[in-house]
């Protein structure tokens, strides 16, 4: 090991262990958040997944909005897609507090069970449900992760040799190090990109210097400069609007057929009403939505933005690299697998540290505490995620504060897992991994039993849960036969 590696060993080992208690849950939640719409659909089995043409969806949404959103300053329509098959509508006067509803393929409002859906995993991943404080915390964790990656390269300096080294049988003491190194080296580009881009996404929250200097602290200033919005006040003169389906065709002429993801109508019923169409971003790396604004009365093109400031585009490309809306299911699946393997890499690092510490200090109180927290950050978060998904099926569909009950199930399971890990010590690893594997395997059965036959999207989530369950059972059975965690 070279001198820098020795100097950073403490940072890598202690920093890696302590911050892995948050990093592993963040990586697990982030991996699930990649499939936010699919999980959201799974958690609302009342929603039909029949495909619908965009122009028909726009017509159905308009008809519904004319009934429920009469007089509202703002209408919003999310057109159905392969990932979110229901039509989403919103209406109101405050863009941040719109009334929202989902529509079935016949245009009727759906009343699905209340849930945070897959959005919960995104919020947990991005801010630990703590708002601005959470973003600060995640930003700090991301910076330590970046430093751990760099220090890890210096500590495990035989990087190419390590990459081809995995000795699960030859020397069990080394097996965990081999797993840690193999995953760390194989995932190095992914880990660097995902961690760096994650900190970039959060930089605005914890480092407002540029906003202070350039925009006098106005947080919305940069976006207002980057996105050319076309807004005009209401004239007060009534006028009838062209059908939304025709407006959609006008927008598609600029943005591409089938590429419009959402429509926003401002001042509906007024002579100055406008329709703004946003392009979907699922076929491009940068998460920037080109948009056009049309006159809602005569369909005239008023404004468009299909070119972007290059630096804004580069920034949004980093956002796109992190949120992976591009690349289709294969790319999202790759992110999902890499995210979970990244969590496994950190878990293996924790096991290495704890085993070495046990050899030197024995089973003291601090060792028991460290073992418990490490186990709860891995097995506990898996159990918590499964409890969240299972509570969606086990709680009554109509229940006051239902969303909060689901979140409560998540934290209750995590708390119980921590208590169990503190009580049982390292023996809890095996129990919690096997239990998580069993629950994940049971998830498709629970889905079928409580919500009946599903569609392809729900089937894909069930299949993913079953695969993960099988792998967890294998990990619990195979890996923990190694004496290092017995």
């Amino acid at each position, binding site marked *: 090991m070279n001198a820098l590696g020795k*100097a950073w060993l403490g940072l890598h080992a202690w920093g890696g262990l302590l911050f892995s208690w948050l990093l592993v849950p963040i990586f697990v939640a982030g991996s699930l958040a990649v499939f936010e719409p699919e999980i959201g659909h799974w958690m609302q089995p009342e929603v039909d997944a029949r495909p619908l043409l965009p122009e028909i969806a726009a017509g159905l949404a308009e008809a519904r909005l004319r009934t429920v959103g009469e007089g509202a300053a703002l209408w919003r329509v999310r057109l159905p897609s392969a990932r979110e098959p229901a039509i989403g509508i919103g209406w109101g006067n405050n863009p941040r507090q719109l009334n929202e509803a989902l529509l079935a393929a016949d245009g009727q409002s759906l009343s699905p069970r209340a849930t945070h859906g897959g959005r919960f995993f995104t919020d947990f991943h991005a801010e630990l449900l703590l708002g601005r404080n959470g973003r600060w915390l995640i930003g700090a964790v991301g910076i330590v992760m970046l*430093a751990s990656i760099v220090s890890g390269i210096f500590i495990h300096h035989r990087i190419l040799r390590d990459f081809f080294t995995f000795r699960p049988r030859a020397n069990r003491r080394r097996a965990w190090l081999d797993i840690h190194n193999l995953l760390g080296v194989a995932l190095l580009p992914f880990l660097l990109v995902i961690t760096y881009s994650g900190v970039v996404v959060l930089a605005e929250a914890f*480092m407002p210097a*540029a906003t202070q200097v*350039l925009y006098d602290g106005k947080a919305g200033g940069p976006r207002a400069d980057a996105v050319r919005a076309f807004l005009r006040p209401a004239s007060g003169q009534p006028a009838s609007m062209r059908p939304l389906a025709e407006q959609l065709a006008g927008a598609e002429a600029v943005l591409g057929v089938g590429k419009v993801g959402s429509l926003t109508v401002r001042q509906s019923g007024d002579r100055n009403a406008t329709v703004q169409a946003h392009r979907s971003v699922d076929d491009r790396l940068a998460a920037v939505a080109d948009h056009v604004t049309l006159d809602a009365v005569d369909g005239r093109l008023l404004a468009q933005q299909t070119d972007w400031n290059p630096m804004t585009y580069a*920034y949004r490309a980093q956002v796109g690299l992190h949120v992976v809306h591009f690349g289709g299911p294969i790319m999202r699946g790759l992110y999902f697998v890499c995210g979970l393997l990244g969590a496994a890499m950190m878990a293996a690092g924790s096991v290495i540290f704890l085993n070495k510490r046990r050899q030197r200090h024995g089973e003291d109180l601090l060792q028991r505490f460290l073992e418990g927290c490490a186990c709860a950050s891995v097995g506990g978060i898996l159990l918590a995620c499964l409890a969240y998904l299972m509570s969606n099926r086990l709680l009554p569909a109509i229940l006051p504060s239902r969303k909060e009950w689901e979140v409560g199930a998540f934290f209750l399971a995590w708390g119980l897992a921590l208590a169990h890990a503190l009580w049982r010590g390292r023996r809890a690893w095996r129990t919690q991994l096997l239990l998580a594997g069993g629950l994940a395997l049971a998830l498709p059965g629970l889905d079928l039993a409580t919500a009946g036959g599903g569609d392809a999207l729900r089937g894909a989530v069930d299949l993913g849960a079953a695969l993960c369950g099988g792998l967890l059972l294998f990990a619990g059975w195979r890996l923990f036969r190694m004496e290092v965690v017995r």
Partner: protein
Amino acid sequence: MQPRIPPVFGRGIFFSNDSVNAFPPSPSRRDGHDLALRILVAASGGYALCWGLFVFLCAWLPYEKVTVWYLTGQLAPLPFVLVLLAAFAAGSAGRVAAWSFGLAGLLAGLGSLE
């Protein structure tokens, strides 16, 4: 000449060239103070350096505001990681604090000249 290994986690640490056996012992009370100081310097020095760098770039880069803002956003992790790594590699936390705060002050000062 071998570079000096900073005594971050105690004197007389057993370091092996084999990363299987390398392990940092738990810090003693005295080392704990040094460790706390390094953590403090890493956090505050990184923040100060990032702030100073941003002020400097915002003042001197000859681009429109939005370009500079989105550029600085992409650079944000670098000063933090740099100072964090330096805080645990340098012989003393004071040296890193002097460098990071000094550089931050210099950059912010140059930025305020514009």
